[in-house]
Each structure stands twice: as structure tokens, then as C-alpha cells.
């Protein structure tokens, strides 16, 4: 495969051995996201513990990029504060929109830096973002529920 390839070894590792896969209890919010163009889907659950992302579990189908990206996401956000995890989210979205022009920050993105190459392929950016969009959505719902129950 060419040097340009988006298929970095890190991505393939996450694809072959996805972390935190499978749906788990307990959770505060569950969402289902679909990329209708290619049929990639994900069901994702978020459990919050106060301000901390206690767990993210998921069940998904799709290409290596979408699968690996879900796995990398869980590594980055589980155990972090919602704010910190949000920073990783922002950094990842920015990276995906960079068309290959951004040098990712490994301190913030860890394994997710391997997706830098994907940002050069507009058609695949959606695959890489699927789990992240689902996660964002679930966190917003879970936080709203918590506010609802505390107010």
C-alpha cells in the first residue's frame, strides 16, 4: 500500500481488535446514528458519573475507518471529564476538516492522530466522524437528563 494510505497500522489494530465494544449497562443515554450513503451504523451509550464520562459502550457496523474511530474514541473519553473529552472531540473534528493540512497534537488525540491521513479523503471523513457525532449527541442528552433530574 502506498505511503499516502489512510490505513495506518494503528487504525488497522483498532479495527481488528476494537476497544470497549459491546453494549453495557448502566447508561444515561443511548443514540443510534446512520450514514445512509454507505450504511454504516452505530448504537452508542454514554454513562456519566457527575462530570465524568464513566463509560461509553457501542455496537456498530461499517468500514474499518468507522470501526477504528469508535474504538479510538472510547480510549480517549472514558474516565475523562466531559470538558476534557469535549476538547478531544473538538480537536478530532478540526483534524477531520483539515484536508490533510493539520499537524495533530498527540497529547490531546493520542491514537486518533492516525486519522490525519483520512482527512484528505472527503468521502471518508463521514465514516471517521460517525462515532464522534453519536457520542456528542449522547452526552448532550445525558447531561440534559441530569439537569432535568437535579432541577
Amino acid at each position, binding site marked *: 500500500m502506498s505511503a499516502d494510505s*489512510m490505513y495506518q497500522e494503528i487504525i488497522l489494530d483498532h479495527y481488528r481488535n476494537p476497544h470497549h465494544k459491546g453494549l453495557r449497562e448502566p447508561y444515561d443515554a443511548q443514540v443510534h446514528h446512520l450514514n*445512509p450513503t*454507505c*450504511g454504516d*451504523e452505530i448504537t452508542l451509550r454514554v454513562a456519566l458519573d457527575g462530570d465524568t464520562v464513566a463509560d461509553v459502550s457501542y455496537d456498530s457496523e461499517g*468500514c474499518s475507518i468507522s470501526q477504528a474511530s469508535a474504538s479510538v474514541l472510547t480510549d480517549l473519553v472514558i474516565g475523562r471529564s466531559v470538558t476534557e473529552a469535549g476538547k478531544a472531540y473538538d480537536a478530532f473534528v478540526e483534524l477531520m476538516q483539515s484536508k490533510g493540512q493539520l499537524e495533530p497534537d498527540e497529547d490531546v488525540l493520542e491514537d486518533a492522530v492516525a486519522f490525519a491521513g483520512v482527512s484528505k*479523503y472527503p468521502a*471518508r471523513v463521514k465514516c471517521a466522524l460517525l462515532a464522534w457525532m453519536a457520542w456528542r449527541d449522547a452526552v448532550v442528552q445525558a447531561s440534559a437528563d441530569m439537569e432535568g433530574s437535579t432541577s
Partner: protein
Amino acid sequence: MGLCMTLDVARIRKDFPILDREVRPSVPLVYLDSAATSQKPAQVLDAMRDYYERHNANVHRGIHTLAEEATAIYEGTRAKVATFVNAASPSEVVFTKNSTEALNLLAHVLPFGPGDEVVVTEMEHHSNLVPWQLACQRTGATLKWIGLTDDGRLDLDDLDRVITDRTRVVSFVHQSNLLGTVNPVDVVVAKARSVGAYVVLDASQSVPHMGIDVQALGVDAVAFTGHKMLGPTGIGVLWAPLARLEEWPPFLGGGEMIDEVTMAGSTWAVPPHKYEAGTPPIAEAAGLGAAVDYLTDVGMDAVRAHEHELTAYALEQLQAVEGLRIIGPTTTEMRGGAISFALGTVHPHDVGQLLDERGVAVRVGHHCARPACLRYGVPATTRASVHLYTSTDDIDALVEGLRAVKAFFGA
């Protein structure tokens, strides 16, 4: 190019400048996405350039030299297309922007209402499904569809159940862009006629690959699209018998399609102009005319025979790849050269991406035929598709690429 005996593919390929392209340094293009759009011979590009550099003017109504010339070119292509599909007269050929517009036009002008039924099939391209869904919503008619068999054919046992006395329109695809299936037009037409329904044929994938005879088909309307038949983007064709074009109401209103206009009301021009509002695709017609000439020179029988051979070869080679499952007919009988497949558990996106790294261009996704994908339990497929410039070398490159993909993913 061992197997291609019917056509001098090497010579034909010289006419298509893009086939010399390297996708990346030292990675030549292997184009297997002709069902999405065909490549264009230099003859087509020359005709368009010549139009713009020497004859460009708006058509009709002009009496200066350029306007007369542009009109002659535009109407000349109408006559060529009429001959190409054996229309009774050039006036039966309406230029649209693509097949999709032609099908939407029909969905707007054919007469049906509450209680009436419109029938399509489960293998339709979205462009021959969504317009009828919208039309049914608009008019209160009901949409029904003919299902598919496990081997990628129309379920003809469904015909009598689905097509009834309430059916006003039966619209279906001649050759499926997803499955490659060629449908038995005569069987569907006979059933539709028996209940007095109009028949619309989506010939977007058949005109470019096998040619058609609109009179022999016995349908009421046919849609096809220039860019899949070696012509440019931006031009499509609606064919219908003159009597139908006269009887149906207009669709888009504007310049060219009128007879007399006053503020209070207007009357319509005779067909085909009645359905050609606004400045038409003039340069595109120049290109399409050259494309029709090119196909005619090669001969549609030769094109068809060549693609038949290629398809046989591809079906055989692909089925020899372990774990590869073809979605659609697995033999060449009543089948064209668009072949969809699943490669073990490797997702089509990954298949397509890795093939692209080797220069092999295939399409992945639902190919605008999502209901058929759902029917076969796949969210997406990888599709290879051929045209007259495709060689067995291209198929070999695909198959070799697929083996590499499998190896890469350890599948």
C-alpha cells in the same frame, strides 16, 4: 487483451484521452465505473469545442448565421437520436437535463389521482422511485412495487397481484444499475397493457450498452441520459410517441415551449418544443450527436457482444475469488456488465479505497438503489461496470486487487 475478439479495444481506447491517465505516478487508471458515468472519446470533446469556438448562439428564433448553425446542430442531434433508438420521428425526442428530469416530467404529466395505483419495482434507481413517491403524495394515488427473487430477477409471480385494474402507470428499469439484471420488457408490457396502464421504461443503462428500438419495445415513454452513453453531462432524453406528447400537459414553463403568450394566458408549442422550456443544452447536444455517431460507427451489436464477453469473463474470474458473493444474476443470461458483490466481511468502503490505491476505480455504496440493497441484506456493495473501452486487462487488475484487499485485511 486476449479475450476481446469482437471489438478492437486497443484502438477504441486510443480515442479516450482519460484512459492514458495515471491516477498517481506510475499507477495507471483502470476505470470500472462506467455505470456511474462513461468516459468520452475525443470526437465528442472536439464536437463541443468546435461548437463553442465556431457556432455558439442561442437556438431557434435567431436568423443570424450562428443562430442558424447552432439550431442545425441541435436539431441534427435530435434526428440522430431518433434514428439511434428508431423513433418514428425526431419530434418524439425531447431533450432534458438527464434521465432524472425525464422521469420527473412523466411523473408530473401522466394522469392519475386518488384511488389509482402506480407500479414500480424493488430494483429501481432512486430516480425512478422517488418521483413516483412524490407524485403519489401529490395526487393521492398509491405506489406499489414488484418484488425481487433471490437471484436478482423481477419476481414475475408478483405481476398479477401487483398490477391490477387500478394501475394507471407501470414504470420500471430496463437494465438494473445495481444488479446488472435485464428485465423482460415484453412480459411486463403485456400485463400492463391488459389493464390499460401506461408503461414507462428507464433505459438509462440499456441505451448505452445494447441500444434499443423504442417502437419494438411497445412502451409509452423511455428515459435515458447522455453522460452514460459517451456523451456529456447536462443532457438527457425523453422519448414518447408524438400522440402522447401532444396529449399530455406541459411541465416546465418558459421560453421556447410556448406558442402565444399574453399576460392572461398562454398556449403551447408543438412537441418536442412544448417540453423544452428555456435555453436547452446546446453544446451538450453537439457532444451527444458525436457520441451517437461514435456508437453507431462501432455498432451497438458489437458493443453488446463485447460487453457480453467481458461480463462472462468477469463473472468467472470474480467467482473464483474466495469469499466473494455476487449480488445479482451470476450468469450472463439477460444480464449486462454492472456487477455488484460483497467481499467476505471487508466493507465496500475499504474495498474501494484499497482498489483506488492500485488505480482501480469501482463504485461502492447503495448505487442509488437502496431498497434493492436492503432486499439483499447488504447496506452497500462494491460494483464494477464496463463499457466498450473496457478490456479483460481491466478485469484482471480488479481481480488481482481484490485478492490483495483480502490479504491486507486477512480476510
